[in-house]
């Protein structure tokens, strides 16, 4: 049985707690948080030991791994502490706020022979996996153009309530939403070489960006446009979409379905595609999971982490090295921002409304 500890009981921490606790071969034995209300709840209803200090938890419990789901700016130090204690680490995304730090921690984990993973769950979504499978098989021929998008309703009014809206805590759409589509691009195509034309705008937030636009370029004439907004009320929850154009066709994938247009019929090791459009959805593509909470991908990533810890499999689809590549791509974007953010006039909701909210 793999014994796990959870650090940080926010939205993601609670979800990881429930999933890890239900993953065959694993058990959550300890949790750590600073909120007395949450720890009160866990003391009363949970079946684990509770701590307010991570080093104390590491010292008192014989853990095989920890899941770190604290505010972004705390990741680096906590990951370092866990690695020093000799336990495997699952860190929520983004990995750290500095590519240099991410690489340093990757090397430390490697030197200590520890399993690492970062919570980029989209790599476990069957539609995106099918997209990668098709690209690697050459179904699109030479891919020249990609569009990676993420929209959702996180900040939809002026507010400054949590760390997510504080730049100093690693808040903002750049570190919250944008890493997902960027991480899918680096998974599909490797590290981009340059970024150009980054624009980060505020819709509501006083301290951070709510939208991120930019373009990545790879050496082999592939360009990818990134479009991100976490202030999009039209979406019920985060919606991530990747579109690819190649010489032989086009693929559009989101969390629900993958639509493939091929000029010529093609066969992969998994299935035959006819010429023209083929649409596949997750009901057809997704493998069953042992426990379902909020999408198979969250269960699958935890099943993978537990299996990797058990087998001491140091290389994995979302290991620290791959997440560090995403952090490097994020820094390419911010480098291409070239101070434009200050020049942009902040978009604010009009003071005098022309309509009445019902």
């Amino acid at each position, binding site marked *: 049985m793999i014994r796990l500890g959870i650090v940080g009981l926010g*939205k993601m921490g609670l979800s990881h707690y429930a999933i890890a606790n239900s993953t065959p071969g694993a058990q959550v034995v300890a949790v750590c948080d600073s909120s007395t209300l949450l720890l*009160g*709840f866990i003391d*009363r209803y*949970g079946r684990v030991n509770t701590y307010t200090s991570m080093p104390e938890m590491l010292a008192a419990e014989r853990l095989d791994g920890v899941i770190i789901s604290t505010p972004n700016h705390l990741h680096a130090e906590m990951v370092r502490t866990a690695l020093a204690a000799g336990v495997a680490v699952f860190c929520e995304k983004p990995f750290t706020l500095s590519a240099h730090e991410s690489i340093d921690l990757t090397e430390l984990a490697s030197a200590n022979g520890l399993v690492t993973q970062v919570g980029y769950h989209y790599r476990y979504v069957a539609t995106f996996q099918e997209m990668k499978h098709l690209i690697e098989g050459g179904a699109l021929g030479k891919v020249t153009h990609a569009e990676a998008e993420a929209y959702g309703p996180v900040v939809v009014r002026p507010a400054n309530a*949590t760390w997510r809206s504080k730049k100093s805590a690693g808040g903002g759409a750049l570190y919250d939403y944008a890493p997902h589509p960027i991480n899918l691009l680096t998974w599909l195509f490797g590290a981009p070489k340059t970024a150009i034309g980054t624009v980060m705008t505020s819709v509501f937030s006083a301290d951070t960006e709510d939208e991120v636009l930019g373009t990545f370029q790879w050496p082999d004439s592939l360009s990818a446009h990134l479009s991100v907004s976490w202030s999009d009320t039209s979406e019920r929850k985060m919606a991530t979409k990747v579109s690819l154009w190649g010489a032989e066709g086009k693929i559009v994938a989101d969390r629900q379905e993958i639509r493939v247009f091929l000029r010529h019929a093609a066969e992969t090791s998994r299935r035959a595609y006819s010429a023209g459009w083929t649409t596949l959805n997750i*009901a*057809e593509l997704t493998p069953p999971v042992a426990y*379902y909470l909020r999408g198979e991908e969250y269960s699958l990533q935890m099943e993978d982490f537990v299996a990797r810890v058990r087998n001491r499999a140091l290389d994995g689809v979302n290991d620290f090295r791959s997440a560090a590549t995403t952090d490097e791509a994020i820094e390419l974007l911010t480098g291409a921002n070239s101070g434009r953010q200050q020049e942009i006039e902040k978009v604010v909701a009009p003071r005098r409304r022309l309509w009445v909210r019902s």
Partner: protein
Amino acid sequence: MPDRLIFGDNQFFGVNHMSEDKARAQAIRFQTDDAVLEVLEAANRNGIRSFMCTTHDRLGSIVPSVLQRPEAFPDQQFLPCMPYAHKYSNAMAEQGIIGSLQGFLPERGRIEALVRSGRSLASRDIAGVATLLIDAEMRPFRNASTPVVFLQNVTVDLILGLGAYEIFQVFADHVRTRYNAEPGFITMNVPRLLDALRMQEIENPLVCANVNKLGFRMSGGVEAYEEALRRADFRLIAMSIFASGAIPPAEAVRWVCGLPNIESIVFGASSERNIVSTRDLVETYWRRQPV
């Protein structure tokens, strides 16, 4: 006992598990209450009078509209499913857990007192906070008939995953005593949930879960579901029988109706034609009695 056929609400609120385009088209089609009420009235006219609906903000105006026109909605019942998870999930990302609770509860001071009170006291009053949240979610259904109140799957499965099974009892007790309703549990993990409910001595529970030929989102596997159904120690309401359109209607209904001891089927439809065709399919394959 719930009706054999229950009308669902996913189509009204832009939920489609297979296609974001379809979800968006439905959200556009049903953005006025009149569009929703028209389809709901068609369901009632065709004998489907139980509406299983998430506690979405829009129920605040839809429910009173139904109650104002009893002649168009005879014997209309609502089966609320709470909470509307995205409301809480988005609020948690925006305001944190404590901020969200404060936002959703009328008694702001109650949470502040809890936060100040320290761990031991907090642990004692959590059941009280849970019942306040239930009351807040039930507000749109004042004066409506609500024979069953469901706990939504994300919440049920979160409690299940955390092992905090006593919360199920808190929910069941409050729904029974305060609303004179039967508690229902929506889940994607039927075999696990049944074990947990048994530990809490919740007898013959009403459970709503995906049941479809593909085995889509039937965690634990189709065989474990069939085995549980043969034991007949719970009542299963089948949902997502078409797996959002991945299975042809007749094939989907035939398979589900062939399982033993299914209590009810919940389905969604956007037109009277589709409501009637699903009802007729179920009548054809479900031989126990006319629905």
